[in-house]
């Protein structure tokens, strides 16, 4: 027994170390002059120069703002749309609801990249090319969100709903007072996956945006990843840490809640 436990612990440590190694390396490279990028000396001088250079190399403040607007906009729209759709699918019977739900699930099977050209055409017809709204629009009616919330809503006991009706609640009030509070862990878990997905999304924002005013961090960061003139790991690391810092901090601060809500919502 003790042996298996020891092996498990060792395995967990090993996986943990492999997982965190790139991050540790990025920390090392970002805080040291580029001469020490691949020379690990304990007493190597520390510096913030790399961050200053990375910050100057691109309008990161603007990119941060764009990404922030983008993820909040998408998340807000997703929460409203998915809640209403999921509630309808979970609790009301209407003709064709099965087929409709099947169509929504079908969206899960299609990679968004396949729709690149079609989406571009739609945005052009709407006159939205090169806007932040255009980056978010294709993702707002999220099939994953609808599915996840529908499953959660279906687990809510009917009795609670009936009690609310006795208390005189209308349909919207039931949704707001009974279902939404009970699905809080699901919302939290879904919110995190949505934010981190759109924080990191690259191809679609690259294609649909043209100017600094609309581009998110990932597209701005791509300038550093190009290798024509050789890679300066120090500056790349600094830029990468900078752009992923808000997500990392958020995760570290709310780690416990996230892990719990993931367990409860069943997303792994």
């Amino acid at each position, binding site marked *: 027994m003790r042996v298996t436990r020891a092996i498990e612990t060792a395995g967990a440590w090993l996986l943990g170390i492999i997982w965190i190694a790139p991050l540790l390396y990025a920390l090392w490279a970002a805080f040291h002059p580029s001469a020490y990028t691949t020379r690990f000396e304990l007493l190597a001088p520390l510096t913030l120069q790399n961050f200053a250079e990375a910050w100057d190399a691109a309008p990161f403040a603007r990119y941060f703002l764009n990404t922030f607007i983008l993820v909040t906009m998408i998340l807000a729209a997703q929460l409203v749309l998915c809640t209403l759709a999921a509630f309808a699918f979970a609790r009301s019977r209407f003709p064709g609801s099965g087929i409709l739900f099947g169509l929504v699930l079908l969206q899960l099977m299609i990679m968004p990249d396949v729709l690149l050209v079609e989406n571009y055409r739609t945005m*052009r017809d709407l006159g939205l090319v090169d806007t932040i709204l255009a980056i978010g629009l294709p993702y707002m009616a999220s099939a994953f969100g609808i599915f996840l919330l529908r499953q959660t809503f279906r687990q809510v006991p009917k009795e609670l709903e009936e009690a609310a009706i006795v208390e005189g609640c209308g349909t919207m009030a039931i949704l707001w007072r009974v279902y939404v509070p009970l699905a809080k862990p699901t919302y939290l878990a879904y919110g995190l996956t949505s934010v981190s997905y759109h924080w990191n999304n690259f*191809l679609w924002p*690259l294609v649909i945006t043209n*100017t600094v005013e609309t581009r998110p961090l990932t597209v701005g960061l*791509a*300038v550093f990843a*190009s290798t024509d003139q*050789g890679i300066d790991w120090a500056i790349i690391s600094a830029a990468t840490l900078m752009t992923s810092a808000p997500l990392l901090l958020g995760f570290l601060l709310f780690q416990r809640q996230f892990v719990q809500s993931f367990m409860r919502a069943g997303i792994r």
Partner: protein
Amino acid sequence: MTITRRTTLGLLGSAPLLAAPSVQAQAPVEITFNYPIAVGGPIPRLIDAYCEEFARANPRFRVKPIYAGSYQDTLTKTLTAMRGGDAPQIACLLSTDMFTLIDEDAVLAWDDLPGVERAWLDSFYPGFLENSRTGGKTWGIPFQRSTVVLYWNKELFREAGLNPDMPPENWAQQVEFAQKLTKRQGDTTTQWGMQIPSSGFPYWLFQALTTQNDVRLMNEEGTRTFFADPKVAEALQYWVDLANRYRVHPPGIVEWGTTPRDFFERKVAMMWTTTGNLTNVRRNAQFPFGVGMLPAGKRRGSPTGGGNLYVFKSANPAQREAAISFARFLTTPERAAHWGIETGYVAVTPASWQTPAMQAYVAEFPPAAVARDQLPHAVAELSTHENQRVTKALNDNLQAALLGRKQAGPAMNDAQQEAERILRRYR
């Protein structure tokens, strides 16, 4: 002279003072210019400045630059936008994407456009035009072009008892120098003699070796490759031998992106890489370094590389005119010289090397002229129909040989078979 209606109109039309307001009242013709930032730093600022200068000189036109990451990202973005009905009017893309763009029916030949003279199209270095022309038409205007050169660390040359101002002249000497420059401590090598990067796009550097071995990799129409030629395998064998037989070159795959850093940290004494690295090396090398032509095999040789300007079919006649005048504006001798000095790319016309600014620059920093002097020996970078797939077939087999999974000969035969299969339908 009697005053008729026609003479009055003629006078009015030719009087610039009277005609000017009508021109100004029109909104300027706008064209979008997709441009890859293949290098970080000040380059977008340079392009912005050129666009503004162009708008001042030509109030009728306006160029809107769109920066789009690597060459690959830019091609994806451009083609997606095109299929979505929103193509740019002009774009800077790899010269090797020529066949892809023609097959996609995306671009126009510059020769067919009104007001483009043959003299301008012929004013570029022939080495750069090789990749810009096919079927007698010019599809790309050379703009940010580069080639492979040798960089060496003069300090390490001196330590090894070599003349620091004499780079190796030929393949045999290259091996001999590299042997002297390789330092070992027991089983580990602390300093390698030389390094030819092989990650990402090994075919480009390999093409330097094959050219030096006096063999071409493809025909001008982009429909045939000659990977199975014994001389190609011979060139590959030389590369493999550097690592395995002479042990002067790191074994396995050498990273393109970190090769300059290895050079700065004295882990390698000689490296092959692009002229586009010149400014980077000049800024970061803490020791005197030399830049020279690649050593000769049976002959000297290097492929060209880099990006050309393409004009897209989506442009209406006014936009085509704008695209032409913008391309001409970017390639005037003064601007080509300025661009070359600021970025390290090779200025694209012989005339630009005659400008006072360029002559002063070369006098102060002679390595800048090495790429130009090597141009007569340069050949077109490997480019065929279905370019991505054909180069992938070659890349995969090159890496297999460098990793020791295949022998040089069979590897090149496999690459040729795969390329044959892909290219058959284009003949």
